[in-house]
């Protein structure tokens, strides 16, 4: 009998541990697999691990993660310990004590996201007082400390509860002063709990994603944020390696912590004191290192030009070239979609960026709200290189605020083997009888609703409630069909077609064309019903710390050769007429990059709908539900 229940216990335990570890095994295998995409074994390699150490973005994020964890742990350990001692030691009236207890428990029982949301609102208000509350390391430290305090206080409190007042009374009887009691009796007794609390705070900080995600700024991305955005973008293989490295560090940390807390279990042992001294020493050294690092980052920032643009949107060689020509340091900060960008801008990040590369559709909003300021066109002589079609756009007449970066379309990427010689139309998504296979939609509100409207023969900017709602229902059905795989942002759809998992995906043309260069089985087309055309433009923020450099950057991009190199890199169309001769004839004559006039007539720009955007948002929620 007993063995049977033991067996059951062991098998459940084994199953549970398996559930926790199997995914890590999968990622480990992927991280040493030489094959770049897909899960076929391509031989053993350490290349992805080496690449991790060559990515400046990852190294910087690692540094930020550490600084954040160390600084917030130090502050929260001090504050949390004081809080616990103060609540425990002094004779507070019952009601007040209950109130204090509540402030300790509140952060523990509040969902992370609610807490993060509250801080976003609060920092918004505090920024009106001082600009130091702009999103960055400082706001992240504040956020982390606030939720760590409670945990430190809880741990210390539980230890305090185990020893009565006798120790202090004895010390008093021996004529110890108040401070002496604290230093010689209370703190040494508490040390194991304080160390455990600090360790907990440290792991909580490393472990946190949600709160960091809500409060990070352009120069303070942490490793989890880097991984999250790469995952949404389609997981380059070195991310597997990075994850494994983080896992290994966690393993080391956990085992070190275990040894430490077990050794420190006996409060007054010399070992506990030695550990306390060691921890203090390490903290001191780390603190100095951190102060130095922060200082050097600050010094660097002064001469830095910060550009905020879509991810993987500029040839790294061009970044080097710009730095070489101007002697300035260029920092490219990436975003995945307009919503993310607008959120960061609204939350006060505008004055932390110099140049914003944004979609045409958001320009009127940015102008109206004073986020961007007029350009000094005299400083941008290369603007004369532009194709006249792009110098008087409806969203910014006369290019007063913006100059075009690149332009492109949204259409269908497809697997030629699945589609065969059938004509490409949007009905391949919306009409179940005509679907050639599995498909991926784009997780982008205006693009997807626009396509559905187009399919129905309406304008993509329709304000007719019934039309928009019908388009939403169409999309909702398309997401319920057997062939639907996912709705993904970034290049997720492209990757699935490349792997042969999907036959169709809604993508930006540049992504698809770059993929087609690697894989002969895939191609791109904008269906004849019409689709989205867009122009991304360069603007300068009103609060740009580095206006002159910002103008230099725009002028640099509009150079004929730079424009051509840009287009050869990301395979979008250039608005730069002078660049055309430098562009490969293959690209120049590719209808997927430069659509023929007959198709161009059917493409439509998305307009900024102002408050009417809510119509689309409500329908979109219905789609996503």
């Amino acid at each position, binding site marked *: 009998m007993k063995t049977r229940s033991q067996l*059951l216990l062991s098998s459940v335990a084994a199953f*549970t541990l398996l559930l926790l570890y199997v995914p890590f095994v999968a990622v480990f295998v992927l991280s040493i697999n030489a094959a770049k995409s897909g899960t076929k074994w391509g031989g053993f390699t350490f290349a992805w691990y080496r690449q991790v150490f060559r990515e400046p973005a990852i190294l910087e994020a690692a540094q930020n993660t550490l600084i954040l964890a160390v600084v917030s742990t130090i502050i929260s350990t001090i504050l949390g310990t004081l809080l616990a001692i103060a609540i425990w030691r002094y*004779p507070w009236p019952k009601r007040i004590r209950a109130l204090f207890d509540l402030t300790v428990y509140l952060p523990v029982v509040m969902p*992370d996201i609610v807490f993060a949301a509250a801080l976003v609102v609060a920092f918004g208000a505090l920024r009106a007082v001082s600009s130091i509350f702009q999103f960055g390391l400082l706001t992240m430290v504040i956020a982390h400390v*606030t939720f760590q305090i409670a945990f430190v206080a809880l741990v210390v409190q539980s230890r305090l509860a185990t020893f009565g007042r006798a120790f202090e009374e004895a010390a*008093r009887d021996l004529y110890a002063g108040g401070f002496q009691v604290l230093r010689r009796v209370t703190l040494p007794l508490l040390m194991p709990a304080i160390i455990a609390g600090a360790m907990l705070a440290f792991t909580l900080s490393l472990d946190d994603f949600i709160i960091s995600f809500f409060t990070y700024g352009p120069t303070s991305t942490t490793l989890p944020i880097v991984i999250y955005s790469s995952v949404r973008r389609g997981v380059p293989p070195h991310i597997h390696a990075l994850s494994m490295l983080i896992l290994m560090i966690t393993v080391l940390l956990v085992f070190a912590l275990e040894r430490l807390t077990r050794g420190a279990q006996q409060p007054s042992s010399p070992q506990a004191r030695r550990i306390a001294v060691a921890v203090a020493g390490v903290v001191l050294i780390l603190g100095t290192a951190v102060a130095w690092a922060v200082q050097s980052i600050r010094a660097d920032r002064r001469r830095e030009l910060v550009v905020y643009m879509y991810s993987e949107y500029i040839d790294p060689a061009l970044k080097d070239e710009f730095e070489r020509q101007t002697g300035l340091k260029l920092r490219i900060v990436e975003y995945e979609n307009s919503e993310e960008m607008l959120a960061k801008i609204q939350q006060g990040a505008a004055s932390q960026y110099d140049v914003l590369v944004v979609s045409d559709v958001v320009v009127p*909003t940015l102008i109206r709200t004073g986020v961007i300021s007029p350009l000094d066109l005299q400083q941008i002589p290369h603007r004369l290189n532009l194709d006249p079609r792009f110098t008087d756009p409806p969203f910014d007449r006369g290019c007063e605020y913006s100059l075009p970066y690149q332009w492109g379309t949204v259409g269908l990427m497809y697997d030629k083997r699945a589609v065969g010689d059938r004509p490409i139309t949007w009905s391949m998504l919306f009409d179940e009888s005509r679907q050639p296979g599995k498909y991926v939609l784009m997780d982008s509100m205006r693009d997807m609703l626009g396509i559905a409207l187009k399919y129905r023969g309406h304008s993509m900017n329709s304000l007719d409630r019934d039309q928009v709602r019908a388009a939403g229902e169409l999309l909702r059905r398309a997401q319920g069909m057997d062939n639907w795989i996912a709705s993904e942002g970034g290049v997720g759809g492209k990757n699935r077609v490349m792997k042969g*998992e999907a036959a169709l995906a809604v993508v930006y043309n540049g992504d698809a064309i770059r993929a087609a260069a690697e894989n002969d089985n895939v191609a791109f087309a904008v269906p004849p019903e019409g689709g989205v055309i867009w122009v991304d433009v360069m603007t300068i923020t009103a609060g740009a710390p580095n206006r002159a450099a910002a103008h230099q950057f725009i002028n640099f991009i509009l150079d004929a050769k730079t424009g051509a190199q840009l287009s050869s890199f990301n395979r979008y169309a250039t608005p730069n007429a002078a660049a055309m001769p430098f562009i490969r004839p293959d690209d120049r004559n590719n209808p997927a990059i430069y659509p023929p006039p007959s198709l161009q007539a059917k493409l439509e720009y998305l307009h900024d709908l102002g408050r009417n955007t809510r119509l689309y948002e409500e329908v979109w*929620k219905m789609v996503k*539900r």
Partner: protein
Amino acid sequence: MRDSPTILWRGELTTRRSLRRRGLGVLAPALFWLTIFLVLPSIATALAAFAQRGELRGQIEWSLTFDNFKRLVGFGLFGWSADHMVIFARSVWIAAVTTCLSLLLAYPLAFFIATRKPGWRYPLLALVMVPFCTNIVIRVYAWQQLLAHDMPIARLAASLRLVRPGSSLCPSTLAVYIGMVSTFLPFAVLPLYASVERLDWSIVEAARDLYASRWRIFRHAILPQTRAALQVATILAFIPAMGTFVVPDLLGGGRYMLAGSLIQQQFGGSDVPFGAAISLALMVLTLGGLFLLRRSGESGAAAAGELAQVREAAP
């Protein structure tokens, strides 16, 4: 002014008033911090829920309107719809299922670890701690990779005709459940372990001596001793499960909305006041759940004490 009577306090002759003054001095830094960065932000969020969206997406225009709450219960441009209710109900449901499954798996695991030889316990516990301390993004993304269409699990499922061949298991409801359980399970293991380790086995033996059935031993000798820990485990798994958006986002394929995703979507660009209203609702929902839980068992303070025990007992 009335003189505060002199008292003997921990071997020191003093007055209550002077003690409180000194206490406030020690308390001040933390209290100041928490007031500025926790209490006031919470109040600001509650106020923002009554404001309007500004011109730039995400901006707040201060005013007094109940519009956000009307939208929250479903009144939109197209009349009433159940969308938000469905999302909230789904969040509660999935968090509850996740919590139950986690407890079901964690309880035996805690017993298993606690009944090993002392030398084995800590390594095993550390094995649970590692995922607990690994970032949620990494854990969820690892599942995303594992469930991809060309990985062994999806192939096995396809060969068993559970899914169509070539299908990915990843954006699916199943994937969301797997992701949720494996993410929040370690939260439940730790308090349960701490409690099981301190279990008074003499009671179990006494019950056995009195010929209690195995079920009765569990029901009357073991369960009551671990009840507080079960409560803490429930809290620790349920609350983060209610607020998550990473799991449905990465494993649900952009179609699986939870309350957390709704908040993230509002703050991530479109409408901060509406996001504030939703997060207020989420908070009320969670606190309501906690209140029920607290009434059904011991006090929350005991539960929190249990939580702290966990941290000291666990590595």
